[in-house]
């Protein structure tokens, strides 16, 4: 049969049998809608989680964790500048950003502009420094996340000698800009969810926190609220300035540019503390490079590679797979429904099939005609299902915007409907319809034309 006449005949038959076929395609529509919905949800969540929360093109390596005895016998490899250089030299590595934790006690206080009064907080173990390049482009001007103490400011006797927001830093007695500080979304959520309600303090939220960018607070290096002091150096106060909220900040605590932490560690904890990084964030050129890099890092002795992204990604994949299988099962049942409908339709059209055979239709023509109808039903049902899924996704997103409170990494959309996925879902609907119609179509093609005409 020629292609165009076939399509014409298919269209004419579909118009005639539209009620039957609409019922048959209902299951396809529902199945594909749920399949597209769950796959879109999985892809959307994966994009948020692996793109923002645990970026899949990034991994963070830490020094190997050793037991007490093993630690005595063998210190293990340290993360120092030599390691950073070796990692940066790898062809699959786009960039490597060292991180360093403060290695001595710290305490802080402040927050009056936000909370209405100053509160004190323990920061020992909760301050780290990161390479400013990791935050490139993230902090809007006029604030900046960089090392302002690189060049010493003018001499001063008190804060009055310095231009705001600079203060007179001791013991050097030099005017210094406040140290740029970042907090994470996680700590804001913790504060809003647990700390603020417990103390009757106002909630902050990410939006409010962003309004208070530029707020300063003080920390005291070398002293904690538990009475601990640094091994060396004299305790001193430093002003910090909140410059933003970032997922690259330490989850609980405050993150400052790496050079500050290096200088403070050298001053309060010794040279070794200033040269050993707590971790290195490595960004690869493509996700596929991670496996090779992990093997390389293993050869360096850094086998404690944190790959939260892989675990979370696997979890999301499993959940999506289960929901996808349930949806695919719905489509499979729908395909059986299509088969049943076609068996009915063919019983009704028995004489017509005999007539078409008498007019010159071969078995292949009859098969092609019925499968063509099934393909159109599948593509229309599949397309409608995908459209419904996209609509349902948009409705969920709208509901989330108005009904759900802000939370860390709350996305604009929970869904991602890629063109290729939508096309694959429609193709799946077509394949299921074709499979459903295959047996009835073969049966119709095998009909004895004389018997089908009822003239025997």
């Amino acid at each position, binding site marked *: 049969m020629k292609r165009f006449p076939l399509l014409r005949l298919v269209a004419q038959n579909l118009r005639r049998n539209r009620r039957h076929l609409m019922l048959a395609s209902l299951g396809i529509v529902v199945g594909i809608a749920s399949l597209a919905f769950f796959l879109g949800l999985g892809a959307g969540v994966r994009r948020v989680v692996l793109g923002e929360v645990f970026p899949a093109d990034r991994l963070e390596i830490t020094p190997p964790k050793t037991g007490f005895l093993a630690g005595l016998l063998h210190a293990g490899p340290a993360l120092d500048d030599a390691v950073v250089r070796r990692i940066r030299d790898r062809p699959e590595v786009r960039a490597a950003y060292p991180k360093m934790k403060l290695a001595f006690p710290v305490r802080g206080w402040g927050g009056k502009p936000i909370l209405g009064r100053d509160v004190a907080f323990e920061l020992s173990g909760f301050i780290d420094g990161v390479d400013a390049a990791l935050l490139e482009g993230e902090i809007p001007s006029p604030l900046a996340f960089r090392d302002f103490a690189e060049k010493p400011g003018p001499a001063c006797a008190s804060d009055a000698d310095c231009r705001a927001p600079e203060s007179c830093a001791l013991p050097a007695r030099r005017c210094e800009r406040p140290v740029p500080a970042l907090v994470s979304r996680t700590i804001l959520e913790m504060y809003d969810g647990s700390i603020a309600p417990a103390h009757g303090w106002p909630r902050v939220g990410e939006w409010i926190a962003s309004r208070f960018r530029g707020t300063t607070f003080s920390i005291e290096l070398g002293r904690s609220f538990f009475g601990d002091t640094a091994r060396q150096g004299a305790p001193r106060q430093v002003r910090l300035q909140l410059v933003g909220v970032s997922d690259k900040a330490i989850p609980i605590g405050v993150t400052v540019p790496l050079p500050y932490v290096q200088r403070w560690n050298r001053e309060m904890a010794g040279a070794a503390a200033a040269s050993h990084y707590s971790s290195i964030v490595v960004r690869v050129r493509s996700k596929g490079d991670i496996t090779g890099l992990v093997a390389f890092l293993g050869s360096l002795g850094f086998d404690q590679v944190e790959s939260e992204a892989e675990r979370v990604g696997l979890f999301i994949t499993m959940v999506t797979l289960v929901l996808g299988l349930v949806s695919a099962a719905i489509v499979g049942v729908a395909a059986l429904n299509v088969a049943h409908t076609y068996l009915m339709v063919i019983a009704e059209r028995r004489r017509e099939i005999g007539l078409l055979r*008498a007019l010159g239709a071969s078995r292949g023509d009859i098969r092609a005609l019925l499968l063509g109808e099934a393909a159109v039903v599948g593509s229309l049902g599949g397309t409608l299902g995908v459209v419904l899924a996209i609509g349902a996704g948009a409705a969920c997103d709208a509901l989330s915007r108005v009904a759900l409170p802000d939370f860390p990494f709350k996305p604009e959309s929970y869904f991602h409907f890629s063109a290729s996925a939508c096309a694959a879902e429609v193709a799946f609907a077509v394949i299921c319809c074709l499979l459903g119609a295959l047996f009835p179509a073969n049966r119709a093609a095998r009909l004895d034309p004389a018997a089908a005409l009822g*003239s025997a």
Partner: protein
Amino acid sequence: MAEAVVQLHGVRRSYGDKPVLSDVTLEVGAGEFLGIVGKSGSGKSTLLNVVGGLDRAYHGTVRVCGQDLGALSDTRLSRFRNRRVGFVFQSFGLLDHLSALDNVMLPAHFGSGEGDIERRARDALFRVGLLDRANDLPPRLSGGQKQRVAIARALFSAPDVLLADEPTGNLDRSTGQDVVDLFSSLNRERRVTLIVVTHEERVSVAAGRVLRLEDGRLLQG
């Protein structure tokens, strides 16, 4: 007799144990109008199906337009039906969801689609006097008009043989006579080879030769 278009030799066909055609031998010449009469259940329709390549479960030899139908594959037999044979049925065999014109063009979907299909279909409708009803759906046509649309469809592919199975069976006397007259004029003016099975006398009167089928055996009318 002119050169034989249809040749049957020793054709036997049975349904289960019941013989329907028994050793049928027949030749039909080009341009002949053959009437086959017989009682209901005598095997007339089966004979027509065998000649038209719709029924292959026979023994013996059937040659139509020089082709041994028993030797053709399903695809080639379908092509043969499409190009060489036109069928007219008692119940018209029109698809109710297609216009008269689309019904006439149906064979074009399966091969005989060369040239301007619609023009050829309109020509066929003109020949049976129904060009003005080309866009009507069959339910809006009378029985006689439906049968004329069916004849137009049978003529669409310019077949060598036109096979009609009780073509006036569902028509009243006057309309049936119109159809018989149409067959006669097609046979006379266009030299269409016609084999009409019927139990109606007026059809057999119009035919150039009449054979009788009794208990599966072909007898001179």
